[in-house]
């Protein structure tokens, strides 16, 4: 008998760290997330393949790594629409798919898979502003055609919202969290509870996860102050946090013919500002070098000034909770899994067959059923949200024992190896000391990508209708069209 298809509520909480969601010493108050955990299966060692949103969610939706899941179009990364994605498979199986996403990622072509049923919201707004009410309305009206898949990309914890916007007044007391980030989680949890109130838990599969973690989650008050200070300095030199957003709005509104001119001018302005920004950052970094701090603390401080992402765990460990229909209660799984495994698990839970040409991912259903499963090696990639960011530098591999990463192109440059079992903060680089393990990890990395080509492909503007018509004419001659 085919299974009755449940509805699916997919909560992606941008920048939610695993430990701020699960661990006993977390300082946020999250009765609703806790209830999902209690009534579901919780994977507490889930690794995202990227530390930035665009590559992470494109990989999650396609089950492939960023060098396949995204493509380059001018300066932007976009979803590789040539690869089949899991949303299409759900839709083909009869699911009515829809979603809410922040407008900052509007350009990545999620419309391609959600069609017109994708609502964007201002990235500077948070769930408790307007968005939460909107989502509750959608759930309350019960107008979504059964079975439905609702994707909610919540942006409350992202730095933009956490540090810029008006904070939720009722959650400023320290009992809601040791830092601003945890307070935001407490505030968000209320809304998660409201969403769940409008969902038939007996006939809904609920997934809660994140695109990536965040360093901000570890800040104490002093670091928060520093972070705010450096944001202001950076912004005065370079409207960095607005760059992507502005870029998107800009490219969508300016007439095509004016884009080259506008680009030239804005590049010049940006370059000047960038140089000024670089100067400030470098001088601050120099100061940190002389301070008596542990490698982890230095790294955190550097990141507080400006992201210097390598492939450290704070940004890659994300929560993953399955709850609701078909899911057993109160099961914690400590085996390492990946964000690319989420959708294969959903599809197998629903008995939906699928194949994917570049698939790397695996269903986690055996683990949910308490069966044995081989260890999953996680690929980690520091690629950014837009092309040519300073943080794009490294790629690596994480097993449950070791983390290895190195330069994106040169195999023996910028190599790092950490023994995660005894060095969870990744402070002691063992790449030279344990060259045999380094080599083994490098081999594993190249097994994932034997040509050592970790750059996403560029797409040509396939809108060249004239060329298409010329080809069509030739194909017609040969009887093919």
């Amino acid at each position, binding site marked *: 008998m085919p299974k009755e298809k449940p509805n699916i509520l997919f909560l992606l909480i941008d920048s939610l760290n695993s430990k701020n969601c699960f661990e006993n010493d977390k300082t946020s108050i999250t009765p609703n997330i806790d209830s999902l955990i209690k009534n579901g299966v919780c994977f507490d060692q889930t690794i995202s393949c990227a530390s930035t949103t665009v590559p992470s969610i494109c990989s999650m939706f396609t089950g492939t790594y960023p*060098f*396949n899941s995204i493509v380059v179009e001018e300066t932007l990364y976009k979803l590789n629409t*040539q690869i*089949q994605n899991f949303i299409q*498979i759900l839709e*083909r199986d009869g699911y009515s798919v829809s979603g809410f996403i922040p407008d900052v990622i509007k350009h990545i072509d999620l419309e391609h898979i959600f069609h017109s049923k994708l609502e964007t919201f201002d990235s500077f707004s948070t769930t408790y502003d307007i968005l939460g009410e909107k989502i509750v309305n959608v759930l309350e009206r019960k107008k979504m055609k059964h079975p439905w898949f609702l994707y909610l990309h919540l942006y409350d914890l992202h730095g933009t919202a956490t540090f810029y916007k008006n904070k939720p007044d009722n959650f400023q007391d320290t009992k809601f969290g040791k830092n601003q980030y945890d307070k935001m989680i407490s505030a968000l949890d209320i809304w998660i509870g409201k969403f769940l109130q409008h969902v038939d838990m007996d006939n809904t599969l609920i997934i809660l996860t994140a695109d990536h973690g965040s360093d901000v989650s570890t800040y104490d008050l002093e670091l928060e102050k520093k972070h705010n200070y450096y944001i202001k300095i950076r912004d005065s030199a370079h409207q960095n946090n607005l760059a992507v957003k502005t870029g998107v709005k800009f490219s969508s509104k300016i007439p095509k013919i004016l884009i080259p001119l506008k680009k030239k001018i804005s590049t010049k302005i940006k370059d000047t500002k960038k140089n000024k920004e670089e100067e400030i950052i470098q001088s601050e970094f120099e100061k940190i070098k002389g301070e008596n701090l542990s490698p982890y603390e230095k790294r955190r401080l550097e990141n507080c000034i400006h992201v210097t992402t390598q492939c450290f765990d704070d940004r890659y460990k994300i929560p993953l909770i399955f709850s609701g229909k078909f899911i057993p209660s109160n099961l914690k799984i400590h085996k390492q899994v990946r964000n690319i495994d989420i959708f294969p698990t959903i599809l197998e839970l629903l008995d939906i*067959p*699928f*194949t994917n*040409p*570049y*698939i*790397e991912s695996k269903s986690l259903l055996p683990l949910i059923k308490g069966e044995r499963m081989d260890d999953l090696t996680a690929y980690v990639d520091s690629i950014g949200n837009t092309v040519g960011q300073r943080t794009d530098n490294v790629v690596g591999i994480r097993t449950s024992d070791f983390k290895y990463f190195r330069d994106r192109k040169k195999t023996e440059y910028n190599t790092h190896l950490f023994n995660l079992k005894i060095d969870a903060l990744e402070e002691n680089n063992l790449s030279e000391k344990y060259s045999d393990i380094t080599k083994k990890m490098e081999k594993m990395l190249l097994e*994932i*990508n*034997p*040509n050592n*080509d970790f750059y996403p*492909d560029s797409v*040509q503007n*396939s809108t060249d209708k004239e*060329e*298409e018509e010329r*080809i*069509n004419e*030739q*194909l017609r*001659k*040969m*009887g*093919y*069209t």
Partner: protein
Amino acid sequence: MNLIFITMDGARVDHIIKGKNYQKLIQKSAFFPTTITYAPFTIAAMHAVFSGVYGFKNGVNSYWSSTKFKKELYKTLPKYLKDVGYTTYGDSINKLILPPDGFDELKIHDELHDNLTERHKLLLDKMEEKNKDGKKFFLYLHYSSIHTGIMREVLKKYDNFSDEYFSSVHKNSDFYDSLFDEADEYLGEIINHINKLGLNEDTLLVVISDHGISIGEKFGERAYGVFCYDYTLKSTVLFNHPQISPTCINNQVRSIDILPTVLDLLSIPQDANYSKIDGKNLVPSIDGKHEARVAFSQSGNPLNSTKPPKEPNVYAVRTNEWKYIRNIHDSSEELYFIKNDPNEENNLINIEKEKSNEMRSEMNSILNQK
């Protein structure tokens, strides 16, 4: 040593081994009757042959992608020859068929009106003149009349779901026989002309078929370029030169292996300035050292459209014994034990689970070699 490279477009292996003139040539050549094409349609098939690389890497994986060939990454056969001083000349059916890079001249014949036998004999004469002037030559000849017949009588008359076509397998087969007989005559005349001009003494002759053609075996594919079944994936290659010992190697090889083999036979080293190719030299096989080679293919099922898709949506991995197919368009999979089930009728995907996993994994690892 000169090179004459002839493509017998759409020649089926079951006919090739019985063709009167083909047989004569096979007996004097190193012949590979199980050469698995990368794509069962000429455009992607020939780009793979000329570059030694699968289309998902070289950029040409569909009818629509000729202009996307990555010539900066992959050096083509004519370019190799041009770079070592050959005169390079080609006669093809359409400009979309071959990467033009490296050809001194690439002419396009009129498949509806030109007499290919006479046209190609004249080209051989022209090459002989060049040769007399001390210039080595590469001549590419595309025999397209099987395609032309299929275009006229099948592609333009029926669609992929025509009951009339699929209920007339005998008639279809007879029609194909007549097209092939003409092809075999063409080949005989060209070989005779090569011999008459004395070019055979110092010329490597390579004759390939680029893909097979349906005569109505599987509903949904009236000709080729839809599925990945053997009647279209199986192509052939033969290498003929006085110094190559005649042999027939039944083991599976790939169309991408042709380029490195030709280069080796002509003593041209592979160019390290270009990306590594997928194909592997067949000369050791000719010398009796066989090795198992896994073949990967892609096709584009147009489904209900009148145009082929822009991207492949049917993938296959084939070994000497097994074939695994992924139909991307409907997420279905097929597994055949082709050794005992050559017509691919018994899908074992849900029965031979271990083998299915092994073949899936084989396909994934090929696709991941971006």
